[in-house]
């Protein structure tokens, strides 16, 4: 967030740079079972973002002293490929990736039935191959598809979407230019059936009322994403039906 004190025009008439309305999401495509080795996987194309998620586990956790006898641990590694951004990113985790990995793991832990798999670990690998703002939301959305694809029991999916403020206007699902030159970014993820928030980060400047508006807009975005998630899983039904712990209302 630059504080928006600059001359980049992001909104013209009631349209955004790419022609979207304020409450309109970018194009999203989803697919599951895209990898051979991973136990569950999903691919998501969200605007120009391209993200693949793979899931391994539940599997034994090493070293042993990290094991929790009451539940599984869910770990997440969010990784930006070096070529996924304009300027090459050096391989390896930076502080931003470590933080995103942490909040994503916490968000997913809220829906996965971890208590069924004591002493184990579930690993979620989020590989961002092309990044254009909103990668954590795309990754989290794909991650819950990959968990479902792996047959890991969940109470619900996690659906994610951001809102933000651009040239004084609250909008949903910021693209790269809006993220760079806007006034606020508010990535969120919810458990759709309870409508409760499991990921919420924000930076920029928002009044109380603007925040309330952005919050609602992000939740609406999440609900749209949730519908797409369900349709995607429905489309992969042949493979998916009968696996224990699948999304119960996935039909």
């Amino acid at each position, binding site marked *: 967030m630059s504080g928006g004190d600059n001359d980049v025009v992001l909104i013209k008439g009631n349209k955004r740079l790419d022609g979207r309305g304020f409450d309109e999401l970018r194009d999203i495509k989803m697919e599951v079972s895209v990898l051979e080795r991973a136990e569950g996987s999903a691919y998501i194309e969200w605007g120009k973002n391209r993200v693949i998620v793979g899931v391994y586990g539940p599997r034994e956790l090493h070293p042993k002293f990290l094991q929790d006898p009451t539940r599984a641990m869910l770990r997440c590694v969010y990784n930006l490929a070096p070529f996924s951004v304009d300027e090459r990113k050096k391989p390896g985790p930076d502080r*931003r990736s470590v933080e995103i990995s942490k909040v994503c793991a*916490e968000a997913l832990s809220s829906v996965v039935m971890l208590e069924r798999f004591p002493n184990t670990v579930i690993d979620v690998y989020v590989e961002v191959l092309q990044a254009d703002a909103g990668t954590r939301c795309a990754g989290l959305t794909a991650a819950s598809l990959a968990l479902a694809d792996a047959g890991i029991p969940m109470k619900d999916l996690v659906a994610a979407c951001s809102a933000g403020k651009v040239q004084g206007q609250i909008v949903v699902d910021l693209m790269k230019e809006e993220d760079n030159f806007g006034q606020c970014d508010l990535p969120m993820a919810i458990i759709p059936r309870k409508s*409760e*928030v499991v990921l*919420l980060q924000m*930076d920029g*400047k928002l009044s109380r009322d603007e925040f*309330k508006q952005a*919050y609602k807009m992000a939740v609406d975005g999440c609900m749209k994403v949730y519908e797409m998630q369900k349709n995607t899983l429905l489309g992969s039904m042949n493979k998916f039906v009968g696996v224990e712990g699948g999304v119960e209302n996935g039909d």
Partner: protein
Amino acid sequence: MEIEAYLKKDYIKNLVKEGKREDGRAFDEYRKIILDNGYAKEKAPGSCMVQLGKTKVMAGISIDIGEPYSDRPEDGVMSTSTELRPIASPKFESGPPNEESIEVARVIDRGIRESGAIDMKKLFIEEDLVWVVFIDIHVMDHSGNLIDAGGIAAISALLNARLPKYEDGKIICGEYSGKLPLTGTPVPCTMVKINDSILIDPSIDEEYGMDARLTISTTDTINAMQKGGNGSFNEKEVMDAVDMAYAKGKEIRRMITGD
């Protein structure tokens, strides 16, 4: 150790059910805050040791000259690091920052950076040369709520920080040319959800017992938020937390600035 955490968790959850906290505070009550500004002033241009109850966190400012970021050639640079020193808890180990310390640093950083509290334009020196402000947060005694303790220490240290004297391309060590240009006092406020109650300023035991955590850093606007933990919040809880953060932020700000 983990068994201790489990027992604490149960104990805390039961207390909260009865509407109580282990140290007798109200749910919306902070522990006592003591600031020791200029704690390391003989060396650090700005510094503050903060006690938040039994939590003890120090922030020290270092200021150097360096290159600006290529996409902001006229702005100064700030960088925030947190070290959970092993002295602070039997659970911390020596080594590079882990995800907990990185999260603490990044949430504090965003609260300060996004509020515009440091006037970055005034940190410009000449083409390709700007002031670089390092905020180092040193956790000395971890009894809960590191983000608030660290955030209060950081902004306090910035507020008492002086800008080094700069002559002929070099910093004159130990001499200063005025205050660091500050324009606001962002204050983080952290709440945890235990059962269905929201408690402000969690102790370490309450952190063991929490379902979820929400930090909101405010000036006259909201500048940074961060949800933590495996639980979830509903909309009302989030909006109530925003109101609480504004109210508590105001009180703490008054204490920091002495106004």
